[in-house]
């Protein structure tokens, strides 16, 4: 209960302004200017003008884009890419490991009273935390595509190696301790960076929604999957899904670094036309 109580400190927010963007949205221009004056020592008025211009530009788009339109030609490929990234993220064990990693480390231990699984879990979570903190700071200014593709392949190989080296061996568990590093550089964070850089503002929460939905499905069906395939069989399946996801991302993902949404969407549209053209020409040959 210490943390919930400590979090009440967040009531400081009660004494703060809403965001300038929100205030401009509500038509409270004076308050927006006041809020910007608290952030900017100089240039608050210029920033206010920029926000108002952005609003005027975005407003017509906001009325147009609805969730159902994500499946129109313009957004079909980027939406599929976002969903593939989320499936690969869960197949890589993102949610399963946070719930079941101690049980996985405990597999095959002769001494059930041993505290080795707990120690390995703490090391695992510490490596994950450190890798995520480091990677989020440098990933913003790095190209996304090579990181997500190569990182996913490494994650997939680690999951397959868990099977090859045997679930009970020390080596296989050591491989799992490496898992957080490529994961933090690829599937852990980059999907949340790439999706908002591609899809319109109103529907960019699809990344978060699909993340939670796939997380629910993976946790809900993990026990059934273990019953049906065994832990090692499940790891092979997960590794193969992640590698297939990485290969499909290598062909379909558009690099978003230093590009605006219009450029990215145009590249997606060209890529989609190219894929459809290839499909139609191959079917006409047959």
């Amino acid at each position, binding site marked *: 209960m210490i*943390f*919930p109580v*400590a*979090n*009440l400190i*967040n*009531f*400081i*927010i*009660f004494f*703060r*302004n*809403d*965001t*300038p*963007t*929100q205030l401009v*949205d*509500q038509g409270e221009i004076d308050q927006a200017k006041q809020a910007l004056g*608290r*952030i*900017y*020592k*100089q240039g608050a008025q210029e920033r206010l003008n920029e926000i108002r211009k952005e609003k005027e530009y975005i407003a017509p788009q906001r009325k147009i884009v609805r969730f159902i339109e994500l499946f129109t030609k313009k957004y079909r490929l980027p939406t599929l890419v976002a969903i593939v990234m989320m499936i690969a993220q869960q197949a890589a064990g993102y*949610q399963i490991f*946070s*719930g079941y990693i*101690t*049980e996985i480390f*405990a597999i095959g231990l002769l001494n059930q*009273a041993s*505290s080795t*699984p*707990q120690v390995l*879990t*703490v090391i695992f*979570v*510490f490596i*994950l*935390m450190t890798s*995520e*903190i480091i*990677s*989020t*700071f440098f*990933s*913003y*200014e790095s190209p996304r595509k090579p990181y997500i593709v190569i990182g996913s392949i490494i994650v997939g190989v680690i999951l397959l190696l868990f099977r090859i080296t045997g679930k009970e061996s020390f080596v296989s568990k050591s491989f799992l301790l490496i898992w957080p590093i490529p994961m933090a550089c690829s599937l852990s*964070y980059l999907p949340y960076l790439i999706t908002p850089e591609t899809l319109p503002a*109103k529907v960019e*929460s699809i990344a*978060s*929604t699909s993340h*939670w*939905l796939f*997380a*629910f499905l993976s*946790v*809900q069906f993990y*026990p059934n999957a273990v019953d049906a395939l065994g832990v090692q069989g499940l790891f092979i399946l997960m590794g193969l899904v992640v590698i297939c996801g990485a290969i499909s991302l290598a062909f379909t993902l558009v690099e978003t670094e230093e590009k605006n949404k219009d450029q990215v969407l145009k590249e997606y549209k060209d890529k989609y036309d190219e894929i459809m053209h290839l499909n139609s020409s191959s079917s006409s040959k047959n």
Partner: protein
Amino acid sequence: MFQDKDKYHHSYFILAGFNICLDYIFYTYSMGVMDIILDHLFKHVFPETSSTLITFIASAPLISASIGSAAVGPIATHLGRRKALIFADPIAICGVILALTSSLPAMIIGRLVVGFMVGVITVINPLYFTEMTPLDYRGPVSSGSTSFMSVGTFLSFMGASLCLTIRKAKSGDTLRSISDISCRKPD
């Protein structure tokens, strides 16, 4: 890092960042702790619960989080980012308290409430922080703040390990996994 001292009031958005990071730690810690106590509750308080229901209860916060993050658009637009953040914390704290009670319906409702608020917070927090941060710092600072979710997860595991060590020292119990841990002794 903060080179433009004459351009920005750094303390203002650093405080906003502090709020956001604390929020991330709180929510991930709460989710972790709820999962740790869950196993104890099913073993000692609700021993006759079916395994299907147990799995559903374990994953319930995740499905309500997906609903929460889908509902965040209208919440952020109509209620505003600041009000959403003000309301989110007390509601989530009530959810955590409910989730740790020994009543099954209250526990399910508590887990659903916390999950919903986690879904809302994971979208609204970066949105609030991004809009409160000057453009020059927006990218690295707002992306760096999300990594505090893993700090919360780490703290929940550390807390669980600490409970395990204390319990072992007191009773000499042999426990296999972190999900077997409880700070209370079994009845």
